[in-house]
């Protein structure tokens, strides 16, 4: 029974070693979990944070990198195919000019307002994405102005009973405007500072309530003055542009709006994308 002796020796020694190792790990784990102490802020030297400079070589210019940031419009809410104007712009660019375009990231978040976007721009991940991009598509402000798509439905129900339609009072539309447009200005300037070279495209607002009698004129006014104040900032910079959508939707709401009556549908996004591409060319 020489083999049994051999088996016993190996198994016993290895298993005792394994047990000791695991026991050590166990004790260490308990210690670490029960009294976690933050190590002195150690930066990891392995990764270099500023790789973005290398990516900006002239050769990379051929390949357009597109980053999208903003609200539900940027995300593509309402588009059944899920493409939004972001992916549609990419495919339009490829079709149109043969330039290869890639979508870096779509950072659109449903319901984002200018107040919500500002702190996002201070996050490292966002800054990294924006820093990498050649074209930055921005859509923001719709929620500031109309306080979310939720109110859209309330606004509609308010029309049938005008007395209770306090949620979307036409006067309120203009009330938040000054604050929001200063924030928009701050956002545009911040993005410019994060990436001084990228082409920044701001997607202008449209009035989704143009077919509701008492919201039509104040809505149009609010949107127009919003776009106007956006232009004031945008005009100051050379590589920044506003893509107007107001006229697109003005008389085509049933054609271009999705069923929630706030976001564009696939066709609407397609129209926006085509306009964006025209501006980039």
């Amino acid at each position, binding site marked *: 029974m020489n083999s*049994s002796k051999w*088996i*016993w020796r190996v*198994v*016993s020694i*290895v*298993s*005792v070693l*394994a*047990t000791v*190792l*695991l*026991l*050590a*790990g*166990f*004790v*260490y*784990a*308990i210690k*670490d*979990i*029960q009294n*976690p*102490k*933050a*190590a002195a802020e*150690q*930066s*990891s030297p*392995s*990764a270099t*944070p500023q790789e973005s400079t290398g990516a900006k070589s002239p050769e990379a210019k051929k390949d357009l990198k597109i980053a999208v940031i903003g609200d539900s419009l940027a*995300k593509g809410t309402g588009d059944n195919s899920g493409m939004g104007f972001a992916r549609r712009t990419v495919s339009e660019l490829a079709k149109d000019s043969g330039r290869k375009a*890639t979508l*870096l*990231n*779509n*950072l*659109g*978040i*449903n*319901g984002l307002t200018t107040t919500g976007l500002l702190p996002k721009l201070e*996050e*490292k*991940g*966002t800054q*990294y*994405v924006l820093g*990498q991009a050649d074209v930055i598509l921005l859509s923001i402000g719709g929620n500031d102005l109309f306080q979310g798509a939720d109110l859209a439905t309330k606004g509609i129900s308010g029309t049938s009973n005008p007395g209770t339609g306090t949620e979307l009072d036409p006067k309120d539309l203009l009330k938040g405007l000054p604050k929001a447009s200063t924030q928009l200005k701050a956002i545009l300037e911040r993005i410019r500072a994060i990436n001084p070279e990228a082409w920044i495209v701001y997607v202008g607002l449209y009035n989704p309530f143009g077919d509701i009698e008492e919201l039509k004129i104040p809505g149009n006014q609010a949107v127009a003055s919003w776009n106007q104040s956006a232009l004031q900032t945008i005009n100051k910079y050379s590589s920044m542009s506003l893509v107007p959508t107001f006229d697109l939707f003005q008389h085509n709401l049933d054609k271009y709006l999705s069923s929630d009556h706030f976001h564009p549908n696939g066709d609407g996004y397609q129209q926006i994308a085509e306009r964006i591409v025209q501006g980039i060319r």
Partner: protein
Amino acid sequence: MINLLPLIKNETIKIIKKKRFYVILLILLVLVPIFTYAQMRSAERTREKFHGDWRLEVQQQITDNENSLGSDRVPDEWKKYRKIFVQQLQYYLDHDVNPNEPNGVTFTREFMANSITLFIPLLIMAIASDIVSGERTSGTIKMLLTRPVKRWKVLLSKLVTLFMFSSLIVVSAFIITYVVSGAVFGYKGFDMPVFTGFQITGSDVDLSAVHAVPQWKYLLMQGGLIWFVSLTIASLAFMVSVLVRSTAASIVVMMAALIAGTILTNMASAWSSAKYLFMVNLELTDYLSGTPAPIEGMNLSFSLAVLSVWAVAALIISFLVFTKRDILN
């Protein structure tokens, strides 16, 4: 104590000669390549989408999770998880560390964290469920007990052998996973920093105690926690093996308990006394990675206590039953 060692030796040789341990190694050698391949494919795909830039990938992950936070269709508990997840990802991004850098060590870490509730216990049961009931099925138990050795010593030798093999299984699972996945993802990554110490209060993460640990240390801690879970499972399976006559039945009993546990962890957050069940407390590695516990009020010492109580009770029952019971065929 002197005549215990030969008994343990005897049991060890039995397990090796019966090829139980080889079966376990074989299972690992067959399954790990499959998982590795699956992981490789999904890694390739995401790399394609994000052009090999992990920061873009992580940022997109954050955005996607933030988007789902706004949705009314997402249950509140999931939102809590995702909020915590977003904060952790943000932390990794802020410190310029790729949380899922593809290498053999990271794969091992993730794989072991996922196998703690079912896969590793299953392997343990392959030995534990058979260790007493197997002797009954084959009738060799009579031979064992007719020897001039006290019954509790016979059982103790079996238990010690089982614990020895539990350690062996955990370590070999680590080694095999690392060797196999390393062949695909590369053998580097031991020094890569992993963050631990996320303290969760409600849906917020306290980052004050977060610290970076080199991945090898993390693996060591993880191994220790998995080892503790394995011993608990071994003790419980041991008890079932004493109580039940056939090996098949004893495996079924344990499997049923474990599967019930995974289902419960997914849906029992409303039933808070479920936290006293051992199956819900198996995911000890979650405390390391900062994943919120399935039920409010669970923490590491709680889970360890629950598991210990179950294990000790199981062992007491097995010894009482084994020493008292008549061995009929």
